[in-house]
């Protein structure tokens, strides 16, 4: 277990999430793929807080943990809004296909 291994795991999760985000047609499934990518970023924060970055500079593990905590809070706000939009869209249209949701497409 070292910095490279943690970053590689995060990179794998990010790539899988990106694949899902591009292939999923259901809005909720796309959001879940997005969660995977955010999770990969969180793993990076904590890994750098644990092992320190490659760049020279003071190692500040507290700041790394706090960044991860703030990122979690922002994600919670984002998901609350996104799922409210999902519910509203489903109520209006009775489906959640991202290809059909082109109301803002000019």
């Amino acid at each position, binding site marked *: 277990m070292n910095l490279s291994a943690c970053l590689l795991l995060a990179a794998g999760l990010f790539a899988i999430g990106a694949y899902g985000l591009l292939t999923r047609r259901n809005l909720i499934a796309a959001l879940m793929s997005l969660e*995977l990518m955010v999770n990969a970023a969180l793993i990076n924060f904590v890994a750098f807080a644990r092992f320190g970055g490659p760049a020279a500079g003071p190692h500040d593990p507290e700041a790394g943990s706090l960044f991860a905590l703030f990122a979690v809070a922002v994600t919670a706000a984002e998901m609350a809004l996104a799922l409210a939009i999902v519910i509203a869209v489903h109520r209006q249209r009775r489906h959640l296909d991202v290809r059909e949701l082109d109301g803002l497409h000019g």
Partner: protein
Amino acid sequence: MRDAFFYAVGAAMLGLAAITVLARNLFRAALGLLGVLLGTAVLFLLLKAELVALVQVMVYIGGIMIFVLYAVLLTSELGGRMARPSPAKLALAAAVAAISLGFLGRLAMRAGPGERGDMSTAIAALKPLGARMLNSGPGGFLIPFELISLLLLAAMVGAIAVARDGKGGSP
């Protein structure tokens, strides 16, 4: 021992992530995501970031996943299978995923092992962490802390306003 556990958790997380993006049943995908989030919490415990692991379990698994499962249950028939995307789109998505994996993987390899330090102590003790969060001086996190509370309030009000039906009835 710790290393073997780390690799086992990592492999399980990658497998569950694959289930999340590949499962044709939405409920199964949500359970896969739940597993990934739980694995991440275990990973944070292995890295001795107890507070982050705790917040991960409380906010992600206790909050966001419940949201997601409710949304799945409210909006889809459980036995339903999602449509399969076209092969061209699958190829494009696989290419994007492979490129990002290659790029990030190369950066990850270049990062090196890092300084291992003392793996038996926590990254940051709870007390200095809390003092740091409420410190307004240099290196303090007071302003983001206050902004986050504002953001959460705005998101909550916005979510209620968006999700209620506009017939003027009580929500």
